[in-house]
């Protein structure tokens, strides 16, 4: 078959790129090696983890909060099989949705592993070994990423697991050890903590979610401790061993003290690495750098007709970043001149409470030597948060000292992930803290905390604290 554009990988970057290509009139194909479309995000990432997060949240509410709300029920029990099944249903309906979208946009879905023969020819090898070839004018590589294993303790998928296995456990671990206090570790750690597991997090750096604003990590740590999680910061894991029924971890603190932990599962969530295996990049002369495919500002590789997006290229490994890049490349191919403001791609952690941020962190502003001011407002002082008893968290606004322009929005608290969109909007339009403070925010809502934090940033004049 002859296509204008062939997309390799059907994750959120790939399938969105394919839809936009089709919208722009390109004859488009998408290659996917797994049985279902949607990539990591839909199958073993964002969507299933959110499904479980919500289930665990319901459970914790039933177990701990109903009583206070005046709802008496017998002590609830977790049916992990049902919980996992519901998660699979959610995943299925989502991936079916993608299949429908491909059909609707007349995009050919080619099942199999895509591999370059030359820059215009791709071989697709299906799971039964059948090979087909497509020729294409342009290619978008969107093959995503895979969990990074520890060099001394590869995933055995039984006791030493990655996020993929953590989403399909058939029992609730009695003690889950999480290596890496980043986004994935904290999300899945909080799921199992709420379902009743003892959870211990071992992090190499000195704070949780270390890429985010320092205040967020500290606040999240407080909440995690409240939940009963043990957190060891500044610890370097030196050994992980599967002993059959249990897993033993050894880590070293900065002062040389050795920590030994025993658990039934060890979730390794130390990051993800770009995935390009079997793609045949050597056939077209693309060389990866630290696993990443190098691209220019137009996301074009060193080969003229080949583009790459999402986790395989530089930048944050986020589904919505990949989606923006998918649209960007499609439009670029059509001769349009789209923009992506990478600073304003929000980062989100789906723990409970959620963490979300956009723009610069306070640490970044300090490093830049930029004069800034800070405004914070705690959820505790928010009527809406008290009504739902979600009083953990705060909103932090960073604004330029001279111009009052908002430079960063950081939220830890209920609904943070949804609220951050308002921060993105404000920053895309370069709003000042006072601009947001002067906009009417409905009462009672969580968003009032953003308004109040903006008032605090403007001239330290919040109204409700």
């Amino acid at each position, binding site marked *: 078959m002859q296509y204008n554009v062939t997309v390799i990988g059907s994750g959120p970057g790939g399938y969105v790129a394919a839809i936009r290509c089709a919208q722009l009139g390109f004859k488009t194909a998408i290659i996917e090696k797994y049985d279902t479309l949607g990539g990591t995000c839909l199958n073993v990432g964002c969507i299933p983890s959110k499904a479980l997060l919500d289930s665990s949240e319901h459970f914790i509410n039933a177990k701990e909060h109903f009583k206070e709300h005046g709802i008496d029920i017998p002590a609830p029990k977790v049916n992990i099989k049902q919980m996992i099944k519901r998660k699979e249903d959610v995943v299925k309906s989502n991936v079916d949705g993608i299949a429908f979208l491909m059909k609707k946009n007349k995009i050919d879905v080619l099942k199999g592993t895509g591999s370059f023969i030359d820059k215009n020819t791709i071989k697709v090898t299906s799971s039964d070994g059948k090979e087909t070839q497509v020729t294409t004018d342009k290619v978008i590589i969107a093959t995503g990423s895979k969990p990074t294993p520890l060099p001394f303790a590869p995933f055995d998928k039984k006791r030493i697991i990655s996020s993929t296995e953590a989403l399909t456990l058939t029992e609730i671990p009695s003690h889950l050890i999480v290596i890496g206090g980043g986004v994935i570790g904290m999300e899945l750690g909080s799921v199992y903590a709420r379902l009743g597991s003892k959870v211990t997090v071992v992090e190499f750096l000195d704070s949780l979610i270390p890429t985010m604003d320092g205040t967020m990590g500290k606040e999240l740590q407080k909440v995690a401790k409240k939940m009963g999680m043990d957190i060891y910061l500044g610890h370097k894991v030196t050994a992980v061993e599967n002993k059959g029924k249990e897993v033993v971890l050894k880590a070293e603190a900065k002062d040389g003290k050795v920590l030994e932990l025993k658990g039934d599962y060890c979730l390794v969530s130390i990051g993800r690495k770009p995935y390009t295996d079997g793609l045949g990049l050597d056939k077209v002369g693309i060389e990866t750098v630290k696993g990443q495919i190098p691209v220019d500002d137009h996301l074009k590789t060193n080969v003229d007709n080949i583009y790459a997006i999402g986790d395989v290229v530089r930048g944050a490994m986020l589904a919505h970043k990949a989606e923006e890049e998918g649209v960007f490349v499609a439009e670029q191919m059509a001769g*349009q001149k789209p*923009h992506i403001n990478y600073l304003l791609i929000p980062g989100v952690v789906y723990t409970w409470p959620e963490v979300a941020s956009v723009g610069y962190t306070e640490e970044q502003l300090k490093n830049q030597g930029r004069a800034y001011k800070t405004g914070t407002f705690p959820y505790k002082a928010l009527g809406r948060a008290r009504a739902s008893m979600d009083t953990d968290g705060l909103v932090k606004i960073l604004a*330029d000292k001279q*111009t009052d322009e908002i430079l960063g929005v950081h939220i830890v608290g209920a609904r943070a992930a949804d609220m951050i969109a308002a921060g993105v909007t404000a920053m*895309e*339009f370069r709003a*000042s803290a*006072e601009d947001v403070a*002067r906009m009417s925010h409905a009462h009672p809502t969580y968003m009032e905390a953003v308004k109040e934090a903006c008032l605090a940033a403007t001239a330290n004049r919040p109204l409700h604290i």
Partner: protein
Amino acid sequence: MAIQIKVPTVGESISEVTIANWLKKDGDVVKLDEVIAELESDKATFELTAQSDGVLKILKQQGTTVPIGETICEIEPGAAQAPQPPKAPATASTPQPQKTESKVSGGIKEMKVPAVGESITEVTISTWLKKEGDFVKLDEVIAEVESDKATFELPAEATGILHIVAKEKETLPIGGLICKIEITGESPVTEPQEKKETAVSASSGGSDKSYAAGHPSPAAAKILSEKGIPANQVQGNGVGGRITKEDAVKAQPSTTKPAETKAQPSQAAPVISSGGSRNIRKEKMTSLRKTIAKRLVSVKNETAMLTTFNEVDMKPIMDMRSKYKDQFKEKYGVGLGFMSFFTKAVCAALKDFPAVNASVEGDEIVYHDYCDISIAVSTPRGLVVPVIRNAELLSFNQIEGEVVRLATKGRDGKLSIEEMTGGTFSITNGGVFGSMLSTPILNPPQSAILGMHNIVERPVVKNGEIVVRPIMYLALSYDHRIVDGRESVSFLVRVKEMLEDPGRLILGV
């Protein structure tokens, strides 16, 4: 945020309207739907209503013709509650230093095109020396403005942040809004005024233009990139001067860029192409060029112009010049050129024939008892004619000095209006470009112009013998309405005689 009122679409075939009548004055408070002006198209007259309550700011004067969609006035809604007292009484009643007057007006100083000369009705912004959002100091030069007569510098009328309204190459009527200066605290204003300022700026809140002025929204940024227009060339009409999607959609590449028009292939009549370029370029006329065009045509139409010729043997002057030019240069610091001889000769001849130095004013003839000689100087922007005042009183070196000074200023575009107005007679020298003979056009309201040409060695008969002499042809164009043939011809002969025998210049014979 001021609401811009644009010329509405009034009919299918109508592309422009003329502002027949402003029913409201600049600065008047107007109400929503109130009729503020009468517009006239070639088909009908209709009324323009205010689209908001507020204070009217007129951008296009009565009588101007504007295309559909162009902004003709703005209404500043916020200001409606507090109509400002008329300016003149305000300054009269408060005896303050003049400078502070400009600092009031609600924290924003609007700079309008000043009246620069009697006959000047519009100016073109030639260059912005400061950028949008720059901090400017009072009296600091922020732009160069060009009228049909001169280029002049525009000093800031207040200290503060500059917000450009009229873009480069835009033509504005006298009184048109050029820019706004957001006054910042640095200016030395008196106590009560400062209070007023802060009060007003606080009430207007975030609507003032700011650091974000010129920042395109995500959609606007994409559109501008695709059009190839840098954001700094677009006037942002969003909050704080942000560039909205609509601004980007409407933005047009600056027309003066030849690159924009160059690419359009010619769609002219079928010509068998030899492979060479068939491109055409269109450029907007500068106001200087438009005025030159208008005036030259009107001179031809309104005067009875004709030309008389003669020739001058330049040998005596050339001999004299080669003999003394080094000494002259050493003593006066300027070279001894031909202009001083011609100017002196012309001044002497004008005394003898005053009609040549006169002009028509209605039913009267105005005679000048002095000789203000306009000399034509070719500049990159076009021809300009600075004036040597009272040339009859000046010595050779003073004339040469003036010629150099005015020509240099002319080439640099620095001539003031005063330096170019009021001449009584003109000299133009097409000879520098190699012209042998031409018929110059009058420089109104003057009645005559002398044309100099190149000097060529020609065979001439002197005392019955053919000799080679450096000859220049002279042309005198004159307005036959007030200058008779006898006067004009005699004038030119007189000039010739004095040039051929420079001793006459000294003796006055």
